[in-house]
């Protein structure tokens, strides 16, 4: 089940990055492109293990940077920081609640671009920043927040449709059979 989930998450990351680059709908209307990797990371941190988080971090980060002008690898650390932060405290999070998913998606989608830009500035690059960046950050955060419960729904549906189900035990036990006597 874990392998299936991990594979599903990696395919989703690949398609998400491609969608961001190929269909600039939100960037035309809202002047900002929503990043779908942080919502995916929220799902991975809450529902899978550390190996899946690490794989999503490395693959997702490399996919994103390969289609962007970012230096290769700059998206890995911010994604991992968000993922490991949620994973650390995931026992305390009500992961099945859409409200909790929304808030976590908001926090993750808000933190990831800030950390990435900070890394870029630290490395001596000059990304396009200005007052409009605040609007872009808001759109990215809210877009990621909305996408997080949708991802939980989609992955839940995929697991029900393609994953194997656990065998449920019946309450019948042969050793507890009541034997009736003659009278």
């Amino acid at each position: 089940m874990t392998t299936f989930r991990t594979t599903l998450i990696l395919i989703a990351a690949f398609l998400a990055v491609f969608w961001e680059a190929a269909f600039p709908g939100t960037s035309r209307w809202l002047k900002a492109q929503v990043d779908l990797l942080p919502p995916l990371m929220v799902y991975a941190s809450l529902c899978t293990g550390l190996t899946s988080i690490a794989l999503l971090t490395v693959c997702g980060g490399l996919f994103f940077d390969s289609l962007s002008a970012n230096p290769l690898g700059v998206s890995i650390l911010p994604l991992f920081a968000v993922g490991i932060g949620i994973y650390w405290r995931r026992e305390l999070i009500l992961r099945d609640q859409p409200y909790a998913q929304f808030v976590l998606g908001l926090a993750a989608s808000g933190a990831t671009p800030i950390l990435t830009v900070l890394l870029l500035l630290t490395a001596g690059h000059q990304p396009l920043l200005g007052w409009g960046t605040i609007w872009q950050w808001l759109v990215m955060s809210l877009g990621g927040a909305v996408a997080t419960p949708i991802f939980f729904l989609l992955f839940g549906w995929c697991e029900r449709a393609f994953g194997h189900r656990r065998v449920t035990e019946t309450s019948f036990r042969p050793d507890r059979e009541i034997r009736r006597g003659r009278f």
Partner: protein
Amino acid sequence: MLKRPQYIVLGLVVLLALVVLNLPARTATRLKLAVGSLFLPLFGLAGAGQQTAAKATDAVLPRAELARQNESLRRENQQLRLQAMQAEETARENFRLRQLFQWQQQSHWKPRLKLARVILRDPANWWRTVQIDLGSKHGLTNNLPVLTTDGLAGRISSVSLTHSQVVLIGDPNCKVSALVQNETRDTGVIGASGPFDTSLVELSHLSRSANLKPGQNVVTSGLGGIFPPGIPIGKIVDSRTVEYGLYTEARVKLAANPGALEEVWVLLP
């Protein structure tokens, strides 16, 4: 709390990220192109989707509208042929006069253009780059100018076998030496745009005595060696003195809209 194997995974990811970040530029570019080529099967899919949408639009367009467009294009074609004839005559006259005064012949950019389709845009909001469907197998190399029919769009920043990355004008990594077509022929440098309005860019490093007026044309100056002279960039919107009057800066409205590029021309050497 994290357990020991988890700390190992954590350390491995951080180490991998640091190694990738510190790769030599050449290796990093190769790795980037290799990872980017994983998307190759989907490039075709995106292109096919766009073509299907265009074909569907063509199919539902009424015959009368097509005839009107055809007529309009025919007229435009005639006008352009007349203008080309005039330009040829002017060039001949210019050549004769240069020979008469024994001036050195100016090197004009040869119109060796290749049409490319924009297939992907930068997913990050802080860069202005696009990917086009031409690569090194089509004769593309780094730093070739990229144009639209309206004006300069950018330059090639990295090339793989089948696709290339174009850094658009307005990106911090695409600086262009520009010339204002006014009496004083002021020169400056086109820099970055704002994160919001991609069609407005800064023209800096102009002299404080620059005579700028809104509507004046800005073209490439040919300095810097990447862009040939005379490619339209845009028009002056407004200007202001900066650094306590030491020099002038202007805002330029780009002729080509970088946010709505679908097809571009690559100027081959």
